[in-house]
Structures are given as C-alpha cells and as structure tokens.
C-alpha cells in the first residue's frame, strides 16, 4: 500500500472515531458523577435520525447538531429523573430507553430514509494541511473531527485540573464526603448526566451528517455502536485520554479488518469488522481483575513492599469505577 493511501486510511480512522469519542466522553462525565446512562445505543440512533431530520428540513447542518444535543440531553434527563428522583434502577431505565429510542428512530425516520441531506464538509486548515504526513492525517478533516480532538483535551483538563471537575470526581466517589463539603449532590448529578447526554447526543448526527451521511434506518449499521461506546468508557478508566486511546484502537481495528480483507480471502469481512470485540472483553477482564475478591485477598497476604509494587501495577492498569456509581445518594 502506498504511503498516500495509508495516510488517507488513517485519517479515515480518526474521522470514524470522532462520534465514538463524543459518546465515550459524554458517558464518562455522566458516570464520573455516579450515573450510568445505559441508553447510549438508543441515543445515538435517535440523535442521528433526529439531527438528520432537522438538518434536512432546515437545510442547516448546525441546527441538526444542536437538535442532536437537545435530544441527547432530554434522554439523559429521563434517566436522571427516574434514577435520582424516583430512585429506580439506572440499569433498568437506561436499558429500556436504549431499545425504545432505537425503535423510535426507525419508526419516525422511515419517511426520510434514503433522502439526501446536507453534509458536513471537509475543512482543511490552511498551511497546516500541507505539512508532510501530519497534514494529510490531521488537518484535512471536518469540523466535528477537529472538535473531537479538542474535546479530549478539554474533558481531561476539566475533570482533572479544574475545581468543578474535582467536585465531579468527588460526588461520584463518595457523595457523603462531597455533601459535607457543601455539594448539592443530587442537583450536580442531574446537571452532569444531562451534560453528558448532550455531548453524547452529538455522536449520532456526526454519523448521519458526515461519516455515513443520510438516514438509512435498520441498515444504517449504527445499531450496536452505543454498546461499544459503553464498553470503551470502562476500558478508558473514566479518563479521557485513555478513553481516546480505546476509541482510536477500536476504529483502527475496524479499518484493519477492511484493509486486510484481500489478504485473507477465507475470512469474511463482517467477521473482521467484529474482531475488536473479543479483544475488548479481554481488556475488560484485565482492567477489572484488580477488583476481584480473590485478588485482594492474595494481595493482602503479600509482604508490604511487594504489596505496594503490585498495587501500583494494578492501579495503573485498573479501571476502578467511581465508587458511588449506580447508587442513589441519601443524606442520612
């Protein structure tokens, strides 16, 4: 393969990873606050359809994205309401919404299936576009891909370097300690869940307005991406940079699947497309292994210096969820 083709292919990997990134970072923020939003699969489909529909009827791509944010935020609001105010299971509500929003998207999107709508255009950045190698890779993308780059850094800075980000980590880790320090835990959880949903709500429109332009209903190939986003969120250890690594890795493996196709005539393309997933399970296993009880017990039996060393390795590998994730907060 020529270098040019390679660069174009890799640039495509970055573009394809952009929507996944928006989803993962949105979900990371929500989960950092302690609320799992399991509706991601449905959110992506409904916002893809809705964003496309809005862009189609207004002729304006920006409005399409805005619509996606609003829809994503509303779905997240439902999850927040049912779990924070009504104290129902986050898993149950999120799961039902995943299926419901998917079916809603197919049903409401039926009339516009196959329509051609506005597309996001490529925005090469002057000067930078001509940088050898990197130019072709990074600077001939559309605006949402550029935004995805920025989002990673922005999210990381917010979570780990700002004051409100510190509080975000606090309410997800130990809400009672945050409460003692003056946080209105439930209100913050509402806010971050909705914000996370709104950010994730940009993922769907990226697909229908850029990567896989148009709305193709059940054959859009979007069904299932939401679940992958959830898996990458865990793999990412609720850390934007590591999550980005997961998203790019996933995209890369999918592209490799396509590329290696001619070299492996015996293996169907669909299989290579889903090959990353067993890898994801393996990694899920590895990152969670530190939490298993028998590991903790064995760890406790080691002498102190060995224990510290192993703990450090496990800590680096580890993706321990925010301790209060999934549990409602009660003041008493």
């Amino acid at each position: 393969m020529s270098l040019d083709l390679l660069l174009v292919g890799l640039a495509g990997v970055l573009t394809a990873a952009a929507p996944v990134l928006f989803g993962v970072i949105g979900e990371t923020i929500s989960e950092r606050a302690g609320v799992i939003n399991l509706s991601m699969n449905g959110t992506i489909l409904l916002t893809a359809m809705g964003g496309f529909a809005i862009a189609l009827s207004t002729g304006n791509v920006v409005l399409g994205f805005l619509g996606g944010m609003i829809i994503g935020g509303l779905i997240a609001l439902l999850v927040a309401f049912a779990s924070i105010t009504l104290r129902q299971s986050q898993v149950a509500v999120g799961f039902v919404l995943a299926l419901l929003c998917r079916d809603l998207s197919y049903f409401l999107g039926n009339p516009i299936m196959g329509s051609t709508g506005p597309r996001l255009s490529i925005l090469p950045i002057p000067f930078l576009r001509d940088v050898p190698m990197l130019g072709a890779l990074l600077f001939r993308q559309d605006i949402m891909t550029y935004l995805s780059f920025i989002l990673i850094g922005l999210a990381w800075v917010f979570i780990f370097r700002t004051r409100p980000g510190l509080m975000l980590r606090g309410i997800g880790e130990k809400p009672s300690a945050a409460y003692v320090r003056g946080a209105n835990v439930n209100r913050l959880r509402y806010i971050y869940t909705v914000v996370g949903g709104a950010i994730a709500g940009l993922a769907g429109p990226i697909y229908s307005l850029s990567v896989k332009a148009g709305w193709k209903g059940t054959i859009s190939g979007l069904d299932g991406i939401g679940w992958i986003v959830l898996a990458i969120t865990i793999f990412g250890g609720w850390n934007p940079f590591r999550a980005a690594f997961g998203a790019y890795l996933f995209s890369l493996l999918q592209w490799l699947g396509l590329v290696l196709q001619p070299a492996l005539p015996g293996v169907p393309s669909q299989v290579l497309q889903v090959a990353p997933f067993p890898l994801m399970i393996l990694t899920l296993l590895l990152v969670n292994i530190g939490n298993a009880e028998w590991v903790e017990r064995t760890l406790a039996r080691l002498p102190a210096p060995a224990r510290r060393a192993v703990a450090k390795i496990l800590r680096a590998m580890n993706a321990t969820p925010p301790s209060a994730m999934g549990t409602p907060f009660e003041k008493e």
Partner: protein
Amino acid sequence: MRSQRGSQSLNALLQGAAVVVALCLTTIVLLISKAPPISAYANIVIGAVGTWDEISNVLVSWVPLLLVTAGLILTFTVGLWNIGIEGQIILGAIFATWALRLLQSSGLPPGIIITAGILAGMVGGALWAMLAGALKAFGGVNEIFGGLGLNFVATALNLWLIFGPWKRPGVASMSGTEPFPHELWLPTLTAQSRLSPSAVVIAVIGILVVYFLIRGTYFGLRLKAVGKNASAAYLLGVPTWQYMMVAFALCGIFAGLAGAIQVTSVYNRLIPAISSGYGYMGLMVAMLVNYQAALAAPVALFFAALNVGSIQLPIVLRLDSSLAGVLQGTLVLLVIIGQGVRQRLTKGGPG
C-alpha cells in the same frame, strides 16, 4: 390489612394508567409521523390475528420469547441482570447447528438427531451463560458488561462460522448456512407454516417449570432469598455463589433451547440474525411482569402479537414495523416510572 388492599388497588390503578398513557404516547408518535392511528392499530390487530397463518406466525414468535423470558425470570429472581442473553441464544443455535451437521449423515433416525441438536443447544447456551457467571465471580467483571462483551463475541463467532467453515458451497451468503434436509426439520403444523407444535409444547412446559421451580421447590425459595438479601441468605446457610452460577446455567439452557428451536424449526439453518433480538425483548417482558412467572405467557404473547402484527405496517401504511417496539418500550418505561411514583407516594403518606 386495609393498607395492603389499598396498595393493591393503587398498584392496579398505576398499571392500568401505564397502559393507557403508553397508548396515548404511541398515538402521539403516530400523529407526528402523519399516520392515521386507528388505522395503524387496526392493521396491527389484523396482522396478528386476521388469518390462521398470522396466528401461527404469532405463536412461532411467541415460543423463543417465552423460553427466554422464563430463563430470565430465574436470573432476575437471584438478583442478576443477564444482558448476555442474546449471546446465549446464539451459542445455543451454534451448538445445535454443529450437532446437526455432525450427525446428519450418520444414519441415525432423524428424531434422535433433532433431539441431539436441541440438547446440544441447551448445553451451548448453558456454557456461554456460565462463562458470564465465571467472569463475574472470578474476574470481578460486572455481568452487564461481561454479558454485552460476550454478546459481541457470540455474534462474531456466528458470522465467522456462517462465512467461514460452515459457509454454503459456492459462495458465502448473508442468508446463512446450507439449509438442513427436510427430515431434520422439527415437524411443523402444515407444510407451509413454520409453527412446530413440539416447540410450543416445549415453551409452555418451560414456563411452567420455572413457575413451579420458584414457587414450589426448596431450590426456588433459596434463589429468591439470595436475590432479596444475599448476606442474610448466606447466614441462613445458602451457598450464594453456587446458586448464582446455577441460575446463570439454567437461564443459558432456556436461551440455548430457544436458539436450537430457531435453527431446527423456524429457519432450518443458521443465519446471522438467529437471535432476532429475542434476548433483549425477553428482558423487557420480564421487567413488565415484575419478574413473576405467572403473567409471562400472556404478556409474551402480547409482545409477539405486536411484533407480527406490525409487519403489516410497512406493507399497508408504509410505516416502519418498529412501532411495536415503540409501544413495548413505552409501556415498560411507564411501568418503571409508575413504580417510582408509587414508592414516593407511599413513603410520603401518613405513618
């Protein structure tokens, strides 16, 4: 006493309200789509019970859904969210296909071969479910994400088999593996229908078994105890981890059974979409019946009828058949919200 009856009527009121509101919301969705609501509902009904063919299709769809729901009721009873159910159906289908392929030229009577296939399917589903259980018990992997991941792996495995080692001679195709010879088809009602009476019997037996297990056996009682308070159950002498694993295995058996039936009677081969979303739908039915086996059969039938009936919508009204899913999802969502509202009301009340 009075408060118990009072809460029961509040319960019934909220359930009824959920159905009504669900219908209203779905109607609104229809209106947004500029579709005639009455016509849409009528078409669904006609599509489900209009002809004998349709009714038999409803039953065909009912069988795997009921089996899966039965299995899920077991895992829900012990307190687990077995999202990996889709993968368990697929593995059941894969194992059944493997057994049939293995034995189809062996000369054994077809009845034996089919039975072997179904048994193999049960084993396959059970193994896949126990894998999710082991990941949870020894790897600390939450059964939700372990199950999701295993669903992907099962899908990948299925595709690889269909397009790889088991592909149709000539060209691999999305239509699945080579269909099995007619003798290996689970006998159906008529030549044209896909409804197999034995499958219906199996499904009904399945839900009865689950109902009986939970209500009438020591095993079922212990399952309930673990699901409601695992630490107290442990102190009372119940080996909690073992019971969780057994629940996983049993659910896997039911899922595998559903997959095997799909292979031997409905499609007569392995196809990419062999699980057809029955797993997730089963989760919804289980949530709707509040994890009690008593109402599983009628509610599953209702869901199956909605699914089959809504196939008419694209044909007659040019609407997407996922309206069924919209109605189903809205119903479950409202029931969840209704539960939450009821809990808040009864907490805020006097006493």
